[in-house]
């Protein structure tokens, strides 16, 4: 497609994505599990209605809507960049065990007595960093590295080990069990508001790192030799990109727990809409990410009223068919 048409497509998709995100954001404020009709929510949103209703809308729904948007941006960008950096259409922070690494690091920290939000964020980023570098090391291995599907299997094995150790800790120490249980289940509701003040700088730092590598990643999709010829440094780019991904995933995990499949769904749709070029896919993914998370969050609130589902269940229901579709496509696209 010509450059002009590509740009038009990008603009049109971006506007549509932003519009959809706005609508979903509004819906997220109006719909919920509590016994509050959408009309009452609207009244509360306009500053009328009873004290209780205003509390529900502004103190409960507003923070989780913002959180959904932040986490969606982070996971969408992280998935897109990870797939570009590993040249693997199945690379997804949740599937490859990076989210599991982050949440496991937090579990360990809680077990050893850490209890402030800032510490949690730092430790989650550290855990995600370890997970990312394990992934990077594996992709450099002969045999396993150039097989996208085997990487997913390795990630599943890694996550299941971490999960079992977490279960051991849970069984061993009932005292911290409740707090830990909170971390290993992905959910947007009920997170402390103080999370937001740590999530925003983490998100911005991660996006800055990732953004700096986009041009080089686009060149690397033509092949390492071409990228080197154009003056990019593939190894440095890959390390910087994966560090950025780790910061994004760590932030998202610390804010909302591990949410699987979001990083797979979002880039998949973004690539379908604007093509495989990472320079176009990244901004679109950052718009689709919040849409997917908001939608999943709304569904998780409405599915089993008056209870709520963990959001990971909803993303798994959307993501597993996407995973099957990607794997089943006759030839796995090389990124």
């Amino acid at each position, binding site marked *: 497609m010509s450059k002009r048409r590509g740009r038009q497509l990008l603009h049109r998709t971006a506007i549509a994505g932003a519009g959809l995100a706005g609508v979903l954001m509004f819906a997220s404020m109006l719909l919920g599990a509590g016994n509050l009709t959408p009309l009452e929510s609207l009244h509360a949103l306009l500053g009328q209605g009873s004290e209780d209703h205003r509390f529900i809308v502004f103190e409960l729904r507003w923070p989780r809507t913002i959180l959904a948007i932040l986490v969606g941006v982070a996971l969408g960008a992280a998935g897109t960049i990870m797939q570009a950096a590993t040249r693997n259409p*199945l690379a997804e922070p949740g599937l490859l065990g990076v989210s599991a690494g982050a949440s496991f690091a937090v579990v360990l920290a809680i077990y050893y007595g850490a209890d402030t939000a800032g510490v949690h964020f730092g430790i989650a980023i550290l855990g995600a960093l370890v997970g990312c570098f394990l992934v990077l090391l*594996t992709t450099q*291995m*002969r*045999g*396993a590295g150039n*097989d996208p*599907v*085997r990487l*997913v*299997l*390795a990630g*599943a*094995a*890694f996550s*299941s*080990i971490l*999960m*079992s*150790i977490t*279960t*051991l800790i849970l*069984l*061993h120490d009932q005292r911290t069990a409740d707090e830990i249980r909170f971390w290993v289940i992905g959910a947007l509701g009920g997170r402390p508001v103080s999370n937001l003040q740590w999530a925003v700088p983490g998100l911005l730092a991660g996006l800055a790192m990732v953004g700096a590598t986009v041009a080089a990643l686009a060149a690397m999709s033509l092949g390492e030799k071409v990228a080197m010829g154009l003056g990019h440094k593939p190894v440095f780019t890959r390390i910087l990109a994966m560090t950025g991904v780790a910061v994004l995933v760590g932030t998202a995990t610390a804010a909302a727990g591990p949410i*699987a*499949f979001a990083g797979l769904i979002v880039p998949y749709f973004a690539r379908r809409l604007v093509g495989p070029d990472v320079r176009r896919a990244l901004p679109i993914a950052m718009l689709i990410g919040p849409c997917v998370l908001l939608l999943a969050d709304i569904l998780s609130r409405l*599915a*089993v009223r008056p*209870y*709520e*589902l*963990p959001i*990971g*269940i*909803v993303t*798994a*229901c959307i*993501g*597993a*068919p996407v*995973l*099957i579709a990607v*794997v*089943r496509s006759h030839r796995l696209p090389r990124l």
Partner: protein
Amino acid sequence: MKTSTTPTRDAPQGFWLLRPGSLSLLVSRRGVWAGLLLALMTALVGVGNLSFGTPSLTPDQVLAALAGAGDPFNVFMLHELRLPRLTAGILSGAALGVGGCLLQTLARNRLATPGIIGIDDGATAFAVASIVAVPTSLAPPMLALVGAATAAALAFGLGGGGSRGYRFIVVGIAVGALFGALTNFMLARTDIDSANLAYPWTVGSLNARAPSTVVVLAACLVICLPIAKALGRQLQLLRFSDAVAIGLGTHVRHTRLAILVVTVFLTATAVAVAGPVGLVSLVAPEVARHLTGHRGVPIINSALAGALLMTAADWVGRTAFAPVEIPVGVITAIVGGPYLLWILLREPRMTGR
């Protein structure tokens, strides 16, 4: 295989030739020794399982109590608590081991075990449904069977019949994730009592299983093990390419279907007893194959190795952090997970690619 240098007309090297009546049977010597070794170790671990715990008994107390003599408390404890648990462990481990061995050989891939391609998750989801969501008169094992069959059909149908290497397995992972989400969905929906009732299904534990499910499992093993053993010959040919197997006279599609059905039955009934202890079906056939020298399809030895692994894991889980009991599924995941990683990353080429 090396041709034998000594002029033995009746048996190749490393085999015994049995001639009961008009039949001739070749029995692998190494396979028999491996089987005896595994059976002996299972027996030892079984006795250990019976005697250690709170309170611990000496082996002669165990024997006396088994015979119904000695302290009535010991007799009660053995007959009502430890012996059923040991039986459940041995039977479910054997079923999982055979199921894993069959499926691995069928898909020509060591990673294609019921636990990994989502059959366990399917069985778990449906069994949980029978407890919490749809209060039916159907017993959990029956619904577990339906779930396992559904998951197997989905994984094989979407994954291209198991002949497309790793893609089939990742399709299976996705199917497993779907069923896992379904399980969590149902657990989130119900009241806390039903959820607690269903919890053991989700981690894999041998604690206080319903005796009726163990009976169903035992019946299934009695029927399926001979069938599996009889299919073993054709299965051995399926390890070659389809063209070779057809040329040697195997009806490939029928054999595949029969093996799949047997696997689904074994896995479902085992999951109905022990919950999803998937990694036993990965490791047990591996152990069996290693001991028998990668010759043939070690059905019986896989069963023995599975029983050994399950009982040993349960022993560790029961005693390592006593008085807290660790579910057997957690133990097998901690031991089996690194092994899975090692298989994946270590070998540059795998069979069946």
